[in-house]
Protein backbone atom coordinates (compact mmCIF):
# COMPACT_ATOMS: atom_id res chain seq x y z
CA UNK A 1 0.00 0.00 0.00
CA UNK A 2 3.06 2.25 0.33
CA UNK A 3 3.14 2.46 -3.45
CA UNK A 4 -0.44 3.82 -3.44
CA UNK A 5 0.59 6.51 -1.01
CA UNK A 6 3.55 7.42 -3.23
CA UNK A 7 1.32 7.64 -6.30
CA UNK A 8 -1.18 9.80 -4.40
CA UNK A 9 1.62 12.08 -3.24
CA UNK A 10 2.82 12.48 -6.81
CA UNK A 11 -0.77 13.17 -7.96
CA UNK A 12 -0.85 16.04 -5.48
CA UNK A 13 2.52 17.41 -6.56
CA UNK A 14 1.70 17.17 -10.27
CA UNK A 15 -1.76 18.69 -9.81
CA UNK A 16 -0.36 21.61 -7.82
CA UNK A 17 2.41 22.24 -10.35
CA UNK A 18 0.14 21.86 -13.37
CA UNK A 19 -2.53 24.23 -12.08
CA UNK A 20 0.15 26.67 -10.94
CA UNK A 21 1.79 26.65 -14.34
CA UNK A 22 -1.55 26.96 -16.17
CA UNK A 23 -3.04 29.45 -13.70
CA UNK A 24 -6.08 27.16 -13.79
CA UNK A 25 -8.58 26.03 -11.22
CA UNK A 26 -9.95 22.84 -9.67
CA UNK A 27 -6.87 21.90 -7.66
CA UNK A 28 -9.14 21.20 -4.69
CA UNK A 29 -11.09 18.64 -6.73
CA UNK A 30 -7.85 16.95 -7.80
CA UNK A 31 -6.38 16.71 -4.32
CA UNK A 32 -9.52 15.28 -2.79
CA UNK A 33 -9.38 12.27 -5.12
CA UNK A 34 -5.61 11.60 -5.00
CA UNK A 35 -5.86 8.40 -2.95
CA UNK A 36 -8.93 7.17 -4.83
CA UNK A 37 -7.25 7.42 -8.22
CA UNK A 38 -3.99 5.98 -6.85
CA UNK A 39 -5.68 2.88 -5.42
CA UNK A 40 -7.76 2.41 -8.57
CA UNK A 41 -4.76 2.39 -10.91
CA UNK A 42 -2.34 0.61 -8.58
CA UNK A 43 -4.59 -2.06 -7.09
CA UNK A 44 -8.00 -2.33 -8.70
CA UNK A 45 -8.29 -1.53 -12.40
CA UNK A 46 -7.34 -4.31 -14.80
CA UNK A 47 -5.66 -2.13 -17.40
CA UNK A 48 -2.44 -2.39 -19.38
CA UNK A 49 -0.44 0.69 -20.39
CA UNK A 50 1.19 -1.33 -23.18
CA UNK A 51 -2.19 -2.24 -24.56
CA UNK A 52 -4.60 0.56 -23.59
CA UNK A 53 -7.30 -0.72 -25.98
CA UNK A 54 -7.27 -4.28 -24.60
CA UNK A 55 -10.88 -5.40 -25.07
CA UNK A 56 -11.47 -6.87 -21.63
CA UNK A 57 -9.81 -4.08 -19.66
CA UNK A 58 -11.82 -2.50 -16.88
CA UNK A 59 -13.36 0.80 -17.92
CA UNK A 60 -12.80 3.92 -15.83
CA UNK A 61 -14.79 7.09 -16.47
CA UNK A 62 -13.96 10.30 -14.64
CA UNK A 63 -17.33 12.00 -14.54
CA UNK A 64 -15.88 14.96 -12.62
CA UNK A 65 -13.88 15.84 -15.71
CA UNK A 66 -12.57 19.09 -14.26
CA UNK A 67 -10.17 17.09 -12.07
CA UNK A 68 -8.46 15.68 -15.18
CA UNK A 69 -4.95 16.64 -14.07
CA UNK A 70 -5.08 14.07 -11.27
CA UNK A 71 -5.80 11.34 -13.83
CA UNK A 72 -3.16 12.63 -16.23
CA UNK A 73 -0.65 12.41 -13.39
CA UNK A 74 -1.49 8.75 -12.76
CA UNK A 75 -1.46 7.95 -16.48
CA UNK A 76 2.02 9.45 -16.69
CA UNK A 77 3.17 7.56 -13.60
CA UNK A 78 1.79 4.32 -15.03
CA UNK A 79 3.34 4.86 -18.45
CA UNK A 80 0.22 5.46 -20.50
CA UNK A 81 1.53 8.86 -21.53
CA UNK A 82 5.01 10.45 -21.48
CA UNK A 83 5.90 12.40 -18.34
CA UNK A 84 6.69 15.52 -20.32
CA UNK A 85 3.07 15.79 -21.46
CA UNK A 86 2.25 17.05 -17.98
CA UNK A 87 4.14 20.22 -18.86
CA UNK A 88 1.76 20.76 -21.77
CA UNK A 89 -1.42 20.91 -19.71
CA UNK A 90 -3.93 23.71 -20.29
CA UNK A 91 -1.72 25.83 -22.54
CA UNK A 92 -1.33 26.90 -26.16
CA UNK A 93 -0.45 23.95 -28.37
CA UNK A 94 -1.19 21.79 -25.37
CA UNK A 95 -1.31 18.01 -25.07
CA UNK A 96 -3.74 17.82 -22.15
CA UNK A 97 -6.90 19.88 -22.03
CA UNK A 98 -8.39 21.18 -18.81
CA UNK A 99 -11.23 18.67 -18.82
CA UNK A 100 -10.52 15.00 -19.35
CA UNK A 101 -10.25 13.93 -22.97
CA UNK A 102 -10.43 10.55 -24.69
CA UNK A 103 -7.81 11.81 -27.12
CA UNK A 104 -5.30 10.98 -24.36
CA UNK A 105 -4.13 7.32 -24.34
CA UNK A 106 -5.65 5.48 -21.39
CA UNK A 107 -8.63 7.81 -21.07
CA UNK A 108 -11.86 6.01 -21.78
CA UNK A 109 -14.25 8.91 -22.10
CA UNK A 110 -14.30 12.70 -22.22
CA UNK A 111 -16.38 14.62 -19.73
CA UNK A 112 -16.46 18.15 -18.38
CA UNK A 113 -20.13 18.88 -18.21
CA UNK A 114 -21.40 17.10 -15.10
CA UNK A 115 -23.88 14.25 -15.21
CA UNK A 116 -22.50 12.65 -18.35
CA UNK A 117 -20.28 9.93 -16.90
CA UNK A 118 -22.72 7.59 -15.21
CA UNK A 119 -25.20 7.13 -18.11
CA UNK A 120 -22.32 6.20 -20.40
CA UNK A 121 -20.90 3.89 -17.73
CA UNK A 122 -24.30 2.19 -17.55
CA UNK A 123 -24.24 1.70 -21.32
CA UNK A 124 -20.74 0.23 -21.09
CA UNK A 125 -21.86 -2.10 -18.30
CA UNK A 126 -24.75 -3.30 -20.46
CA UNK A 127 -22.37 -3.82 -23.38
CA UNK A 128 -19.98 -5.83 -21.17
CA UNK A 129 -22.82 -8.08 -20.11
CA UNK A 130 -23.96 -8.47 -23.72
CA UNK A 131 -20.41 -9.38 -24.74
CA UNK A 132 -20.16 -11.93 -21.94
CA UNK A 133 -17.09 -10.14 -20.59
CA UNK A 134 -16.20 -9.95 -16.90
CA UNK A 135 -14.76 -6.46 -17.25
CA UNK A 136 -16.00 -3.92 -14.69
CA UNK A 137 -17.02 -0.30 -15.19
CA UNK A 138 -15.90 2.27 -12.62
CA UNK A 139 -17.22 5.81 -12.62
CA UNK A 140 -15.87 8.54 -10.33
CA UNK A 141 -18.32 11.33 -9.56
CA UNK A 142 -18.33 14.50 -7.48
CA UNK A 143 -20.86 16.21 -5.25
CA UNK A 144 -21.86 18.42 -8.18
CA UNK A 145 -22.28 15.36 -10.39
CA UNK A 146 -24.77 14.00 -7.90
CA UNK A 147 -26.99 17.08 -8.46
CA UNK A 148 -27.55 16.31 -12.13
CA UNK A 149 -30.85 14.78 -13.17
CA UNK A 150 -29.10 12.60 -15.74
CA UNK A 151 -27.05 11.01 -12.94
CA UNK A 152 -30.23 10.02 -11.13
CA UNK A 153 -31.78 8.76 -14.34
CA UNK A 154 -28.79 6.47 -14.68
CA UNK A 155 -28.89 5.46 -11.01
CA UNK A 156 -32.48 4.29 -11.39
CA UNK A 157 -31.82 2.40 -14.60
CA UNK A 158 -28.63 0.71 -13.33
CA UNK A 159 -30.48 -0.97 -10.49
CA UNK A 160 -33.40 -1.83 -12.76
CA UNK A 161 -30.90 -3.68 -14.95
CA UNK A 162 -29.10 -5.30 -11.95
CA UNK A 163 -25.74 -4.08 -13.21
CA UNK A 164 -23.40 -5.54 -10.63
CA UNK A 165 -20.46 -4.94 -12.97
CA UNK A 166 -20.88 -1.21 -12.35
CA UNK A 167 -19.22 0.74 -9.54
CA UNK A 168 -19.93 4.37 -8.78
CA UNK A 169 -17.33 6.03 -6.59
CA UNK A 170 -18.26 9.38 -5.11
CA UNK A 171 -15.48 11.75 -4.12
CA UNK A 172 -17.65 13.12 -1.35
CA UNK A 173 -15.83 16.26 -0.29
CA UNK A 174 -19.14 18.02 0.36
CA UNK A 175 -18.23 21.20 -1.48
CA UNK A 176 -19.46 22.27 -4.88
CA UNK A 177 -18.98 25.28 -7.11
CA UNK A 178 -20.77 27.91 -5.04
CA UNK A 179 -20.50 26.57 -1.53
CA UNK A 180 -21.01 23.69 0.85
CA UNK A 181 -23.28 21.00 -0.59
CA UNK A 182 -25.40 20.91 2.57
CA UNK A 183 -26.43 24.50 1.85
CA UNK A 184 -27.10 23.92 -1.86
CA UNK A 185 -28.37 20.42 -2.57
CA UNK A 186 -27.88 18.31 0.50
CA UNK A 187 -27.18 14.72 -0.52
CA UNK A 188 -27.39 13.28 2.98
CA UNK A 189 -28.03 10.55 3.73
CA UNK A 190 -26.40 9.52 0.45
CA UNK A 191 -25.81 5.87 1.30
CA UNK A 192 -29.36 5.35 2.47
CA UNK A 193 -30.73 7.12 -0.57
CA UNK A 194 -28.71 4.89 -2.86
CA UNK A 195 -29.80 1.75 -1.01
CA UNK A 196 -33.40 2.85 -1.49
CA UNK A 197 -32.66 3.25 -5.18
CA UNK A 198 -31.57 -0.38 -5.30
CA UNK A 199 -27.80 0.01 -5.02
CA UNK A 200 -25.45 -1.55 -2.54
CA UNK A 201 -23.57 1.18 -0.67
CA UNK A 202 -20.41 1.33 1.41
CA UNK A 203 -18.62 4.27 2.91
CA UNK A 204 -14.93 4.77 3.62
CA UNK A 205 -12.40 7.41 4.47
CA UNK A 206 -11.38 8.45 0.96
CA UNK A 207 -7.83 9.31 2.04
CA UNK A 208 -7.18 5.90 3.63
CA UNK A 209 -5.60 3.76 0.93
CA UNK A 210 -6.05 0.53 2.92
CA UNK A 211 -9.75 1.20 3.45
CA UNK A 212 -10.22 2.13 -0.21
CA UNK A 213 -8.42 -1.00 -1.36
CA UNK A 214 -10.34 -3.26 1.02
CA UNK A 215 -13.67 -1.90 -0.13
CA UNK A 216 -12.94 -1.83 -3.86
CA UNK A 217 -11.55 -5.38 -3.75
CA UNK A 218 -15.00 -6.52 -2.66
CA UNK A 219 -17.10 -5.19 -5.53
CA UNK A 220 -19.80 -6.04 -6.25
CA UNK A 221 -20.93 -5.40 -2.71
CA UNK A 222 -24.10 -7.37 -3.42
CA UNK A 223 -24.87 -9.76 -6.23
CA UNK A 224 -27.30 -8.32 -8.76
CA UNK A 225 -26.89 -4.76 -7.56
CA UNK A 226 -24.70 -1.90 -8.73
CA UNK A 227 -22.20 -0.76 -6.10
CA UNK A 228 -21.54 2.71 -4.78
CA UNK A 229 -18.51 3.55 -2.69
CA UNK A 230 -18.95 6.84 -0.88
CA UNK A 231 -15.55 8.26 -0.07
CA UNK A 232 -15.44 10.88 2.64
CA UNK A 233 -12.78 13.28 1.49
CA UNK A 234 -11.47 16.74 2.22
CA UNK A 235 -11.44 19.17 -0.64
CA UNK A 236 -7.87 20.26 -1.44
CA UNK A 237 -6.45 17.74 1.05
CA UNK A 238 -2.76 18.41 1.57
CA UNK A 239 -2.68 22.19 1.22
CA UNK A 240 -3.53 23.23 4.77
CA UNK A 241 -4.55 26.80 4.08
CA UNK A 242 -6.88 25.77 1.22
CA UNK A 243 -8.34 22.59 2.72
CA UNK A 244 -12.13 22.40 2.85
CA UNK A 245 -12.65 25.75 1.14
CA UNK A 246 -14.83 26.73 -1.81
CA UNK A 247 -11.94 28.89 -3.03
CA UNK A 248 -9.88 25.78 -3.74
CA UNK A 249 -12.25 25.11 -6.64
CA UNK A 250 -10.92 28.23 -8.33
CA UNK A 251 -7.53 29.25 -6.98
CA UNK A 252 -4.14 27.79 -7.76
CA UNK A 253 -1.05 27.81 -5.58
CA UNK A 254 0.91 30.97 -6.51
CA UNK A 255 4.62 30.88 -7.36
CA UNK A 256 5.69 32.35 -4.03
CA UNK A 257 4.03 29.54 -2.09
CA UNK A 258 4.79 26.67 -4.45
CA UNK A 259 7.98 25.43 -2.83
CA UNK A 260 6.60 25.52 0.68
CA UNK A 261 3.35 23.77 -0.26
CA UNK A 262 5.12 20.99 -2.14
CA UNK A 263 7.64 20.55 0.69
CA UNK A 264 4.79 20.02 3.13
CA UNK A 265 3.38 17.27 0.93
CA UNK A 266 6.80 15.67 0.97
CA UNK A 267 7.95 16.49 -2.53
Amino acid at each position, binding site marked *: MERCKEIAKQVRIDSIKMTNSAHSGHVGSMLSMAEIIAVLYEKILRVDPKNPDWEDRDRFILSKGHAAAAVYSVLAQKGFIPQDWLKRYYCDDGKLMGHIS*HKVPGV*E*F*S*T*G*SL*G*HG*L*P*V*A*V*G*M*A*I*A*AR*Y*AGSNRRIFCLASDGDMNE*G*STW*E*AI*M*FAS*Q*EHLDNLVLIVDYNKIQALGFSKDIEDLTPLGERMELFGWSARRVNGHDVEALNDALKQVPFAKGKPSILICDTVKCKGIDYMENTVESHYRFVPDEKLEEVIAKIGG
Partner: protein
Amino acid sequence: MRAVFNKTLLEIAKKDKRIHMVLADIGFGEIEPFRDTFPERYYNVGVAEQNMTGVACGIAMEGNIAVTYSIANFPTLRCLEQIRNDVCYHDANVKIVIIGGGVSYGALGMSHHSTEDLAIMRALPNIVIEVPCDNNEAIGATYAMIEHNGPFYYRCGYKGEKDIHSGPVDFKIGKAITVREGSDITLMFCGPIGSEVVEAADMLEKEGVSCRIVSMHTIKPIDKDAIVDAAKKTGGIITVEEHNLMGGLGGAVSEVICDTGAYPKVFKRLALPDVNVCKIGGQKWIRDQYGLQARGIADSIREALGKRK
Protein backbone atom coordinates in the same frame (compact mmCIF):
# COMPACT_ATOMS: atom_id res chain seq x y z
CA MET B 1 -43.26 5.77 -42.62
CA ARG B 2 -42.85 4.94 -38.95
CA ALA B 3 -44.02 1.38 -39.58
CA VAL B 4 -41.72 0.98 -42.57
CA PHE B 5 -38.77 2.23 -40.58
CA ASN B 6 -39.39 -0.23 -37.74
CA LYS B 7 -39.96 -3.13 -40.12
CA THR B 8 -36.77 -2.35 -42.04
CA LEU B 9 -34.69 -1.97 -38.89
CA LEU B 10 -36.01 -5.30 -37.63
CA GLU B 11 -35.00 -7.00 -40.87
CA ILE B 12 -31.49 -5.52 -40.71
CA ALA B 13 -31.14 -6.41 -37.02
CA LYS B 14 -31.85 -10.06 -37.80
CA LYS B 15 -28.54 -10.15 -39.65
CA ASP B 16 -26.59 -7.58 -37.65
CA LYS B 17 -26.21 -8.46 -33.99
CA ARG B 18 -24.49 -5.18 -33.22
CA ILE B 19 -27.82 -3.33 -33.37
CA HIS B 20 -29.35 -2.39 -30.00
CA MET B 21 -32.45 -0.27 -29.44
CA VAL B 22 -32.47 2.12 -26.50
CA LEU B 23 -35.86 3.68 -25.86
CA ALA B 24 -37.30 6.24 -23.50
CA ASP B 25 -40.74 4.69 -23.09
CA ILE B 26 -42.06 5.70 -26.50
CA GLY B 27 -43.00 3.48 -29.43
CA PHE B 28 -46.28 1.79 -28.52
CA GLY B 29 -47.63 -0.36 -31.33
CA GLU B 30 -44.39 -0.14 -33.32
CA ILE B 31 -41.39 -1.34 -31.34
CA GLU B 32 -42.86 -4.54 -29.93
CA PRO B 33 -41.57 -6.82 -32.73
CA PHE B 34 -37.99 -5.66 -32.03
CA ARG B 35 -38.52 -6.05 -28.29
CA ASP B 36 -39.93 -9.55 -28.65
CA THR B 37 -37.40 -10.72 -31.26
CA PHE B 38 -34.28 -9.30 -29.59
CA PRO B 39 -35.00 -8.88 -25.86
CA GLU B 40 -31.25 -8.99 -25.17
CA ARG B 41 -30.72 -5.98 -27.42
CA TYR B 42 -33.69 -3.92 -26.33
CA TYR B 43 -33.71 -1.42 -23.43
CA ASN B 44 -36.39 0.93 -22.21
CA VAL B 45 -34.67 3.35 -19.84
CA GLY B 46 -37.95 4.95 -18.83
CA VAL B 47 -38.89 8.54 -19.53
CA ALA B 48 -35.31 9.74 -19.37
CA GLU B 49 -33.89 10.97 -22.66
CA GLN B 50 -30.54 12.12 -21.31
CA ASN B 51 -29.93 8.67 -19.91
CA MET B 52 -31.21 7.06 -23.12
CA THR B 53 -28.57 8.92 -25.10
CA GLY B 54 -25.77 8.37 -22.59
CA VAL B 55 -26.55 4.66 -22.30
CA ALA B 56 -26.72 4.37 -26.09
CA CYS B 57 -23.34 6.06 -26.31
CA GLY B 58 -21.83 3.65 -23.78
CA ILE B 59 -23.22 0.67 -25.70
CA ALA B 60 -21.95 2.08 -28.98
CA MET B 61 -18.48 2.83 -27.56
CA GLU B 62 -18.05 -0.94 -27.20
CA GLY B 63 -18.37 -1.77 -30.88
CA ASN B 64 -22.15 -1.87 -31.13
CA ILE B 65 -24.72 0.20 -32.98
CA ALA B 66 -27.22 1.86 -30.65
CA VAL B 67 -30.48 3.29 -31.95
CA THR B 68 -32.29 5.85 -29.82
CA TYR B 69 -35.91 6.42 -30.74
CA SER B 70 -38.66 8.72 -29.60
CA ILE B 71 -41.00 11.35 -30.94
CA ALA B 72 -40.41 14.91 -32.04
CA ASN B 73 -37.81 16.75 -29.92
CA PHE B 74 -37.51 14.23 -27.12
CA PRO B 75 -34.43 12.37 -28.42
CA THR B 76 -32.79 15.52 -29.81
CA LEU B 77 -33.31 18.79 -27.99
CA ARG B 78 -34.10 17.25 -24.61
CA CYS B 79 -30.69 15.60 -24.57
CA LEU B 80 -28.77 17.85 -26.91
CA GLU B 81 -25.63 18.03 -24.80
CA GLN B 82 -25.43 14.25 -24.58
CA ILE B 83 -25.58 14.19 -28.39
CA ARG B 84 -22.91 16.87 -28.65
CA ASN B 85 -20.45 15.84 -25.94
CA ASP B 86 -21.01 12.10 -25.78
CA VAL B 87 -22.13 10.97 -29.22
CA CYS B 88 -20.62 13.43 -31.68
CA TYR B 89 -17.37 14.16 -29.85
CA HIS B 90 -16.64 10.47 -29.40
CA ASP B 91 -17.83 9.62 -32.92
CA ALA B 92 -20.03 7.01 -31.30
CA ASN B 93 -22.12 4.80 -33.54
CA VAL B 94 -25.42 6.12 -32.21
CA LYS B 95 -28.42 6.52 -34.47
CA ILE B 96 -30.93 9.11 -33.27
CA VAL B 97 -34.36 8.47 -34.72
CA ILE B 98 -37.32 10.75 -34.29
CA ILE B 99 -40.84 9.95 -35.28
CA GLY B 100 -42.97 12.84 -36.47
CA GLY B 101 -40.69 15.38 -38.12
CA GLY B 102 -42.16 18.83 -38.67
CA VAL B 103 -45.77 19.21 -37.59
CA SER B 104 -46.71 15.55 -38.14
CA TYR B 105 -48.31 15.44 -34.72
CA GLY B 106 -50.50 18.42 -35.63
CA ALA B 107 -53.06 19.15 -32.96
CA LEU B 108 -50.98 17.59 -30.19
CA GLY B 109 -49.42 21.00 -30.19
CA MET B 110 -46.16 22.90 -30.03
CA SER B 111 -44.37 20.55 -27.62
CA HIS B 112 -44.74 17.74 -30.19
CA HIS B 113 -43.63 19.69 -33.27
CA SER B 114 -40.09 19.14 -34.41
CA THR B 115 -39.51 22.35 -36.28
CA GLU B 116 -36.04 23.55 -35.30
CA ASP B 117 -34.29 20.18 -35.21
CA LEU B 118 -32.54 20.43 -38.57
CA ALA B 119 -30.95 23.79 -37.72
CA ILE B 120 -29.85 22.66 -34.30
CA MET B 121 -28.59 19.21 -35.26
CA ARG B 122 -26.90 20.60 -38.37
CA ALA B 123 -24.68 22.76 -36.18
CA LEU B 124 -23.16 19.69 -34.52
CA PRO B 125 -19.90 18.44 -36.01
CA ASN B 126 -19.59 14.84 -37.08
CA ILE B 127 -23.22 13.90 -37.68
CA VAL B 128 -25.18 12.81 -40.75
CA ILE B 129 -28.74 14.13 -41.08
CA GLU B 130 -31.32 12.32 -43.18
CA VAL B 131 -34.92 13.34 -43.87
CA PRO B 132 -36.61 10.65 -45.97
CA CYS B 133 -39.67 11.82 -47.89
CA ASP B 134 -41.59 8.60 -48.43
CA ASN B 135 -41.45 4.91 -47.68
CA ASN B 136 -39.01 4.26 -50.52
CA GLU B 137 -36.51 6.73 -49.13
CA ALA B 138 -37.25 5.57 -45.58
CA ILE B 139 -36.07 2.07 -46.45
CA GLY B 140 -32.97 3.37 -48.22
CA ALA B 141 -32.17 5.72 -45.35
CA THR B 142 -32.46 2.95 -42.77
CA TYR B 143 -29.95 0.78 -44.60
CA ALA B 144 -27.67 3.77 -45.10
CA MET B 145 -27.93 4.64 -41.41
CA ILE B 146 -26.72 1.22 -40.32
CA GLU B 147 -24.00 1.05 -42.98
CA HIS B 148 -22.64 4.45 -41.96
CA ASN B 149 -20.17 4.24 -39.10
CA GLY B 150 -20.83 7.22 -36.82
CA PRO B 151 -23.46 9.58 -35.42
CA PHE B 152 -26.63 9.77 -37.47
CA TYR B 153 -29.87 11.70 -37.17
CA TYR B 154 -32.90 10.17 -38.88
CA ARG B 155 -35.93 12.46 -39.07
CA CYS B 156 -38.72 10.01 -39.75
CA GLY B 157 -42.27 10.92 -40.75
CA TYR B 158 -45.31 9.59 -38.98
CA LYS B 159 -47.93 7.68 -40.93
CA GLY B 160 -49.90 7.86 -44.14
CA GLU B 161 -47.28 9.72 -46.19
CA LYS B 162 -47.87 9.63 -49.94
CA ASP B 163 -45.30 7.94 -52.13
CA ILE B 164 -43.21 10.43 -54.04
CA HIS B 165 -40.96 7.92 -55.78
CA SER B 166 -42.60 5.21 -57.84
CA GLY B 167 -40.47 2.45 -56.38
CA PRO B 168 -37.19 1.63 -54.62
CA VAL B 169 -34.59 4.38 -54.89
CA ASP B 170 -30.81 4.31 -55.22
CA PHE B 171 -30.23 5.90 -51.83
CA LYS B 172 -26.82 7.33 -51.06
CA ILE B 173 -25.91 9.63 -48.17
CA GLY B 174 -25.25 13.12 -49.51
CA LYS B 175 -26.65 12.38 -52.95
CA ALA B 176 -29.90 14.16 -53.83
CA ILE B 177 -32.51 12.30 -55.86
CA THR B 178 -34.16 13.96 -58.85
CA VAL B 179 -37.87 13.23 -58.71
CA ARG B 180 -38.76 14.95 -61.98
CA GLU B 181 -36.89 16.89 -64.64
CA GLY B 182 -38.02 20.39 -65.60
CA SER B 183 -36.57 23.60 -66.97
CA ASP B 184 -38.14 26.72 -65.43
CA ILE B 185 -37.25 26.25 -61.77
CA THR B 186 -35.84 23.63 -59.38
CA LEU B 187 -37.89 22.82 -56.31
CA MET B 188 -35.67 21.35 -53.60
CA PHE B 189 -37.45 19.78 -50.66
CA CYS B 190 -36.81 17.42 -47.80
CA GLY B 191 -39.26 15.10 -46.11
CA PRO B 192 -42.89 14.17 -46.64
CA ILE B 193 -43.83 17.75 -47.54
CA GLY B 194 -42.46 16.70 -50.92
CA SER B 195 -45.90 15.37 -51.78
CA GLU B 196 -47.21 18.93 -51.60
CA VAL B 197 -44.37 20.05 -53.82
CA VAL B 198 -45.21 17.42 -56.44
CA GLU B 199 -48.85 18.45 -56.35
CA ALA B 200 -47.89 22.11 -56.75
CA ALA B 201 -45.70 21.22 -59.73
CA ASP B 202 -48.60 19.30 -61.29
CA MET B 203 -50.81 22.40 -60.97
CA LEU B 204 -48.15 24.58 -62.59
CA GLU B 205 -47.51 22.07 -65.35
CA LYS B 206 -51.03 22.76 -66.58
CA GLU B 207 -50.17 26.45 -66.73
CA GLY B 208 -47.08 25.76 -68.80
CA VAL B 209 -44.54 26.07 -65.99
CA SER B 210 -41.98 23.25 -65.99
CA CYS B 211 -40.70 22.45 -62.50
CA ARG B 212 -37.69 20.30 -61.75
CA ILE B 213 -38.09 18.50 -58.40
CA VAL B 214 -35.22 17.27 -56.26
CA SER B 215 -35.41 15.41 -52.96
CA MET B 216 -32.65 16.73 -50.69
CA HIS B 217 -32.97 13.85 -48.24
CA THR B 218 -29.51 14.46 -46.80
CA ILE B 219 -29.28 17.77 -44.97
CA LYS B 220 -25.76 17.05 -43.80
CA PRO B 221 -23.51 16.55 -45.68
CA ILE B 222 -25.53 18.60 -48.17
CA ASP B 223 -25.25 17.72 -51.86
CA LYS B 224 -23.37 20.77 -53.14
CA ASP B 225 -23.18 19.51 -56.69
CA ALA B 226 -26.96 19.19 -56.86
CA ILE B 227 -27.35 22.79 -55.73
CA VAL B 228 -24.80 24.22 -58.16
CA ASP B 229 -26.31 22.08 -60.89
CA ALA B 230 -29.80 23.37 -60.15
CA ALA B 231 -28.62 26.98 -60.21
CA LYS B 232 -27.05 26.42 -63.63
CA LYS B 233 -29.67 24.19 -65.22
CA THR B 234 -32.87 25.99 -64.34
CA GLY B 235 -34.04 29.52 -63.80
CA GLY B 236 -33.86 29.34 -60.06
CA ILE B 237 -34.16 27.36 -56.83
CA ILE B 238 -37.01 27.25 -54.36
CA THR B 239 -36.54 25.23 -51.18
CA VAL B 240 -39.48 23.72 -49.33
CA GLU B 241 -39.34 22.22 -45.85
CA GLU B 242 -41.50 21.60 -42.81
CA HIS B 243 -39.16 23.44 -40.48
CA ASN B 244 -38.46 26.90 -39.17
CA LEU B 245 -37.21 29.27 -41.85
CA MET B 246 -33.90 29.50 -40.05
CA GLY B 247 -31.08 27.10 -40.53
CA GLY B 248 -32.79 24.12 -42.14
CA LEU B 249 -32.73 23.01 -45.78
CA GLY B 250 -33.17 26.54 -47.09
CA GLY B 251 -30.36 27.75 -44.89
CA ALA B 252 -28.08 24.93 -45.97
CA VAL B 253 -28.79 25.51 -49.66
CA SER B 254 -28.28 29.25 -49.42
CA GLU B 255 -24.95 28.74 -47.67
CA VAL B 256 -23.76 26.60 -50.56
CA ILE B 257 -24.96 29.18 -53.07
CA CYS B 258 -23.07 31.96 -51.28
CA ASP B 259 -19.94 29.86 -50.76
CA THR B 260 -19.73 28.67 -54.35
CA GLY B 261 -20.95 31.84 -56.03
CA ALA B 262 -23.43 29.76 -58.03
CA TYR B 263 -26.20 32.32 -57.72
CA PRO B 264 -29.51 31.29 -59.25
CA LYS B 265 -31.61 33.97 -60.95
CA VAL B 266 -34.42 33.29 -58.49
CA PHE B 267 -34.09 31.99 -54.96
CA LYS B 268 -36.73 31.56 -52.32
CA ARG B 269 -37.07 29.60 -49.10
CA LEU B 270 -40.48 28.23 -48.21
CA ALA B 271 -40.69 27.13 -44.60
CA LEU B 272 -42.56 27.75 -41.40
CA PRO B 273 -42.09 31.31 -40.16
CA ASP B 274 -39.88 31.95 -37.14
CA VAL B 275 -42.72 31.55 -34.64
CA ASN B 276 -43.85 29.00 -32.10
CA VAL B 277 -46.58 27.21 -34.00
CA CYS B 278 -49.65 27.35 -31.78
CA LYS B 279 -52.40 27.07 -34.36
CA ILE B 280 -54.49 24.02 -33.57
CA GLY B 281 -55.11 21.53 -36.33
CA GLY B 282 -53.83 18.58 -38.32
CA GLN B 283 -50.58 18.51 -40.28
CA LYS B 284 -52.13 19.42 -43.62
CA TRP B 285 -54.20 22.21 -42.09
CA ILE B 286 -51.19 23.69 -40.31
CA ARG B 287 -49.18 23.51 -43.53
CA ASP B 288 -51.96 25.40 -45.25
CA GLN B 289 -51.93 28.12 -42.61
CA TYR B 290 -48.35 28.91 -43.57
CA GLY B 291 -48.66 28.53 -47.33
CA LEU B 292 -47.02 25.11 -47.33
CA GLN B 293 -49.85 23.12 -48.91
CA ALA B 294 -49.71 22.50 -52.67
CA ARG B 295 -51.73 25.57 -53.60
CA GLY B 296 -49.68 27.85 -51.33
CA ILE B 297 -46.45 26.47 -52.71
CA ALA B 298 -47.75 26.95 -56.26
CA ASP B 299 -48.63 30.56 -55.43
CA SER B 300 -45.12 31.19 -54.12
CA ILE B 301 -43.56 29.66 -57.23
CA ARG B 302 -45.69 31.82 -59.51
CA GLU B 303 -44.75 34.88 -57.52
CA ALA B 304 -41.06 34.03 -57.64
CA LEU B 305 -41.24 33.56 -61.40
CA GLY B 306 -43.30 36.71 -61.88
CA LYS B 307 -46.21 34.78 -63.33
CA ARG B 308 -49.91 35.29 -62.88
CA LYS B 309 -52.39 32.52 -62.34
